[in-house]
């Protein structure tokens, strides 16, 4: 039953991924402006443009172009970047771990702060902690990530001077040996605590700036759903039977409440890829999102398509994971057909 559910979801995910590739491809081709002109600049001669079009197959029908594109993608070829003059795949492989680390870091913050805070607020509705949480999460949600980034910079880097302003590591610090590409993980694996500390100091601000909105969102969702849980008879049952208070809140009330929260968290993680475009720019974080900003400003079509494909891919994978986790929590999905 569970396996069938996962297969069904995976097929749906594949279809979506296919759709994303179509969308991006046609967007890049249909946009006003000749890609060849864009690539070569306005000073290019007509011959140069024609040769370039020929080389990229831009004279073929759009459908043929798409098939050629899909074929090369399947072979792991995303084309060359005009901006870096390297293959897009290499560019992405180099920059992706930095972005992934940032997003994972902020996801950890989102879960470890957002959920407990939401449970507390939901348990003690209208109490002090609930009011505090409401304001805190509201400010988190309404402040744009780049404004958070700048506020944090002003306070911790410029005013207090305790955190570095840019990059993943200080100058002169060598990245740890490559295992996952995530410096925090790799430096632990290597047992290199000095590097770990340096990498931590660098990731705190961008990670927090990226996390604030999703912490707020998670807190609000958790609070609302746990609060709703507390109105349910099964919580009254738990209390009537003297179940441990903490267990009641953290397990009995939270688990059913988690189902909608997880779905929102999945979307939030995806939205982080968008916010990363801003945060990485502020902190000069050498990740895929900053690469994305650069190639967009450079009108580098191959690189744009490659970056967006990766983002779409991750969005779909994350949501697939969320769906599967939800199906583990919610027996009604897992056991679907067996209802009496």
């Amino acid at each position: 039953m569970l396996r069938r559910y996962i297969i069904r979801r995976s097929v749906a995910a594949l279809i979506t991924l296919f759709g994303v590739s179509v969308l991006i491809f046609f967007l890049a081709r249909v946009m006003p402006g000749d890609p060849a002109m864009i690539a070569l600049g306005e000073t290019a001669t007509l011959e140069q443009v024609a040769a370039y079009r020929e080389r990229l197959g831009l004279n073929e029908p759009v459908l043929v172009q798409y098939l050629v594109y899909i074929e090369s993608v399947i072979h792991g070829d995303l084309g060359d970047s005009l901006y870096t003059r390297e293959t897009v795949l290499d560019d992405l492989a180099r920059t992706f771990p930095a972005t992934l680390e940032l997003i994972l870091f902020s996801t950890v913050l989102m879960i470890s702060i957002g959920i407990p805070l939401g449970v507390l607020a939901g348990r003690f509705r209208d109490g002090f902690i609930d009011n505090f949480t409401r304001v805190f999460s509201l400010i988190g949600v309404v402040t744009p990530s780049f404004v958070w980034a700048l506020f944090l910079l002003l306070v911790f880097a410029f005013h207090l001077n305790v955190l570095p302003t840019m990059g993943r590591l200080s100058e002169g610090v060598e990245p740890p040996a490559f295992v996952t590409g995530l410096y925090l993980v790799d430096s632990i694996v290597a047992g290199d605590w000095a590097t770990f500390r340096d990498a931590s100091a660098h990731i705190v601000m961008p990670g927090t700036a990226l996390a604030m909105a999703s912490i707020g969102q998670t807190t609000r969702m958790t609070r609302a759903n746990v609060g709703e849980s507390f109105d349910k008879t099964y919580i009254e049952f738990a209390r009537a039977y003297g179940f441990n208070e903490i267990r009641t809140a953290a397990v009995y009330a939270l688990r059913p409440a988690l189902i909608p929260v997880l779905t929102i968290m999945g979307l939030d993680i995806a939205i982080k890829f968008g916010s990363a475009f801003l945060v990485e720019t502020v902190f000069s974080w050498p990740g895929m999102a900053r690469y994305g900003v650069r190639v967009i400003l450079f009108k580098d079509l191959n690189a744009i398509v490659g970056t967006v494909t990766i983002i779409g891919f991750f969005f779909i994978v994350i949501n697939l994971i969320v769906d599967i986790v939800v199906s583990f929590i919610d027996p009604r999905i897992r056991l679907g057909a067996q209802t009496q």
Partner: protein
Amino acid sequence: MIAGAFFGGRGWYKFSRNRLSLFGLFLVISFILMALLAPWITPYPHHAESFIDFANANQPPSAKYMFGTDLIGRDVFSRVLFGYRISLRLSIIVLAIAVPLGVIPGLLAGYYGGWWETITMRIVDVFLAVPSLVMALIVVGLVGSSLTNAMLAIAFFWWPWYTRLLYNITRQLKNEGYVTAAQVVGASHWHILIKEILPNCVPSLLTKMTLDMSFVILVAASLGFLGLGVRAPTPELGSMIAEGANYLPAMWWLPVFAGLGILIAVLGFNLVGDGLRDLLDVEV
């Protein structure tokens, strides 16, 4: 109908019990008033466009310039208020395009089901798979930055949210007694969609639109921050923040005041949206 229920007393009473929502309403009204009245209430309305006064450049906040001045000596307070005009116009136009664009397919998908549903909702999934900020960035990046392009780009990637919302509501409403009753007495599909289903979607739509005013302002500011929004010298909050960010910590007042400016607008719409959600008891 909704407005009637809302302002008829009980709705307003309930809404006004929630102090946070009232505060939000205050912020929204102030935001709109500041945007509309900017030419008359700002101390230096001519600073909104290209105006150069190097003698007064880079001034920190003072009695003369409440929020300080920018690189070429323009009053930041005046420019924030004129920035509000841009934000307000942009978010209203984006929603005016995206809402009908999203509502119609959603309504049809939820009501008719079948192939139309499958295709529509798959397309929605595809559009939602990439953050709208990123898509808008790309479009503006390729087509060139201008206010019109930014609006069109955001709207083009915003409609799927409304399709999904309307789809979910319509699917639920389709099985309600009054809809079945209308079908039984032989009302046309058109009549049912427009007269029975659509009015019942209004509370959710209204709430989502209020909340989205804040998110569109955010996305627009993000575009501006990355240099892909409105072109200089038009005052835009995101690009003002970017300008100050290049000279931190020296010109702290630019990101701080322009940032607070965004925050107030976004906070207002968010609070009102939340208040409406609780009041109308809808999911969005």
